[in-house]
């Protein structure tokens, strides 16, 4: 049966030649970049995520250090416009106006995602929720990433007592499922603001990363280039940050992206359970939990927050996958028929 068929030998041998030719004369960084740019899913995701972030953050405007930008969307989340009735079924006022079919009504309209039962503009609510979720994601990624790297690097580099102590600490934290610890902390600190919540969630989700970094450091510290650096008189700090860390960066970047895609789901889940972001602030998980009962009557209130969570998490996952492929020296890309034909031709010429 064909389930167990496989490609033929000649192709495998030709493929090896193509790979060697491709990476000739390139630095490690160039190879990684080249591989990453070739990963179609990752590139599409990168563009999608970037445009989503631009779109979301420019919609309602922002203010950093006194420099503000008002945002291009006409409603704020606190506005209470009247419920739109024209053009909606009579029992469903406030239906969405988003129209992607080219024609007279093409465009966003007054309330692209519709209005809730009070008349609040749902587009602005979703945009604010997405802002919050993205902020939480980035903060968790930064905090957990930094802690995981530092703890893992120290434990792996110094070994001995430091390693044992830090790893027991990691054991303590890993034993408690993140969602349990996150709920306990989130329930009490969620009301103090989104960034505070994200900070706490970051403080409990670095355990796995630190173990991986430690593992990498344990192998890398025995390598010749570390000895060479030490002989040359480099300090421990210099060896850790300038010599070993760049070599472990592949593992770190990949796992931080995975951590971030997990983080956006974690925040949404906590807010959904009531342990995360609390009203009057808005987050995507909170929106889903507030409007899940209106699914049968006003389905538009339900779809958008979930779709945005999926888009963000999916793109981050794909970017992580692209990075993993790019950093993995054993990874081999798919060779197309055209490449093989070209390779065979050039082989025949020689």
């Amino acid at each position, binding site marked *: 049966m064909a389930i167990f068929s496989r490609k033929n030998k000649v192709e495998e041998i030709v493929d090896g030649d193509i790979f060697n030719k491709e990476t000739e004369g390139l630095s490690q960084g160039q190879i990684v970049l080249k591989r990453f740019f070739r990963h179609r899913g990752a590139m599409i995701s990168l563009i999608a995520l970037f445009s989503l972030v631009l779109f979301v953050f420019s919609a309602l405007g922002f203010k950093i250090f006194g420099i503000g930008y008002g945002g291009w969307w006409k409603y704020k989340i606190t506005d209470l416009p009247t419920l739109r009735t024209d053009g909606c079924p009579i029992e469903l006022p406030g239906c969405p106006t988003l129209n992607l079919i080219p024609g007279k009504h093409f465009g966003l309209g007054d309330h692209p995602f519709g209005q809730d039962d009070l008349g609040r503009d749902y587009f602005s609510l979703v945009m604010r929720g997405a802002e919050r979720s993205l902020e939480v994601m980035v903060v968790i990624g930064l905090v957990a990433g930094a802690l995981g790297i530092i703890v893992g690097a120290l434990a792996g580099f110094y070994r001995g007592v430091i390693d044992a102590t830090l790893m027991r600490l990691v054991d303590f934290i890993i034993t408690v499922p993140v969602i*349990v610890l996150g709920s306990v902390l989130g329930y009490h600190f969620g009301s103090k603001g989104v960034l505070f919540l994200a900070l706490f969630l970051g403080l409990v989700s670095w355990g796995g990363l630190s173990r991986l970094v430690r593992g990498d450091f344990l192998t890398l510290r025995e390598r010749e280039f570390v000895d060479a650096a030490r002989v040359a008189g480099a300090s421990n700090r210099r060896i850790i940050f300038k010599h070993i860390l760049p070599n472990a960066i592949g593992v770190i970047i990949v796992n931080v992206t995975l951590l971030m895609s997990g983080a956006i789901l974690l925040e949404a889940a906590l807010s959904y359970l009531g342990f995360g972001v609390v009203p009057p602030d808005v987050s995507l998980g909170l929106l889903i939990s507030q409007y899940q009962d209106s699914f049968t009557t006003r389905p538009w209130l339900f779809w958008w927050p979930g779709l945005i969570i999926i888009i963000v998490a999916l793109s981050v996952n794909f970017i992580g996958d692209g990075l993993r492929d790019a950093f993995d020296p054993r990874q081999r890309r798919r060779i197309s028929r055209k490449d093989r034909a070209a390779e065979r031709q050039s082989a025949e010429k020689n």
Partner: protein
Amino acid sequence: MFAYISRRIGVMFVILFGSSFLIYNAAAYAGDPTEGLRGSTAPQAHQKLIALIRELHLNVPPPARYFIWLKGILKGFTGHIDLGLTRDQNPVSTAISNAIPITIRLILLSFLLAILFGLGLGIVSALRQYSRFDYAMTFIAFLMYSLPIFWVAVLLKAYLAISFNNFLLNGKIAPLWILSASAVSGFFWAAIISGTRKRVFAIFGVAGGATAVILTLLSVTKWFTHPGLGPITMLILGLAFAVGITYLSTGISNKAALRSSITVIIIGFLLYFPVQYFLKKDANLLTILVMLLITIAIAVGVAYLFAKIDRRPVIRTSVFTSLFAGILFIIDKLMKTWVPYINTDAIHQRPIPTISQSNDLLPEGNFWFSSLDTVLHLLLPTIALILITMAGYIRYSRGTMLEVMNQDYIRTARAKGLSERTVIMRHAFRNTLIPITTILVVDFAAIMSGAIITESVFGWHGMGTQFNLAVHNQDLNLLMGVFLFTSSLVIMANLVADLLYSALDPRIRVVGKK
């Protein structure tokens, strides 16, 4: 070995002590159980406050209060474990021991199915690396990774429960649905089996056509409102399974295995009517268990008759076949229960429930009613849990399989001239299972905590609900009870995973001393 295990268990207690201390203090400092009473203007609020403070030892600072709690736990060594009382004065141990079976019931089935589908799809995806099927699987896996389960749950409730219940009122499938389902099935099988272009088109046609015919038949015969298998369908399904499992497990050329698994199916077919007598209304789990043992005994016996040498693979094959036959019997019986079940007053023609773990209004004393009820209540949460857990297994088994296929021993096996089936099923598949087993064990513990959300969405009263209650009521004792259970599970799972790893992989030896 013994030294290693006892050392690990010792470490386990130290870790449990540390992490419970950590979370006790975090929770105690984070929440104030007297919050509600302090602002209260009710009469005797002050007295209640004082009583509460005394009862919960709130005048003791948390780090010291932890040891009061710990004293109750340490009584566990004398057999009287004391986890304290919940806020509504019930023992925590009762609350938790009532909740555990419900959570396990919720998780177990979805866990097994997720493993089955996840491993299967992941491995086929690896064997078809860089094919369209592989890309589609990668995308689907990432999509499932990114799904917020509570969002999916609402969709499932709306489409699989409410719409499906509406559909069951007449049970006719619209032609458009039949067409699209056939197309999907055609694509799926064509992508999995693959081959030359002509072959792919042929498979697409056969699979799609078969799906269309089956669905039309089901729709015309009103199968959905009056489901059932019947002995003939069961025989056909059983024979197909017997051939399939023989092919995967030993290869079709092993005549003994093929004959014995087919014989098992035929015995099952002949026993169809006698067995019905035992599947009566007042059957219970024990009956099922005894019948399961008999089934396995028959399978082993048949295998012994057919195989004179090299019996193990033959026994394995026929036991798998007999288990499948057993499952068919159960499904058939449940389907026969379907019509009376949906016509009871408690169900009222809307069989797929959206919340809760069982229907309390069902008439009691009918084993099959309550079994069907449990199965139907499990349906939506199981699908939701499978969706989110399967992604990891697809990715992981694909990665492991790819790694294994690049090993030297695979090349050696091929060089010996073994068939590709043998190479994959005997050499690659088994080695893929080693790292996956250890992941699975650890995952089982993680899913327990993942069930918190699932339980809350589907209104089950398991551990997740207890946990929610504990956090919302600032019930420290209950919280610590839940925590103690999940953390011990996580730690134990890690120990079991390590032991399994050393048992499965002879290269790895555990050592008693460091």
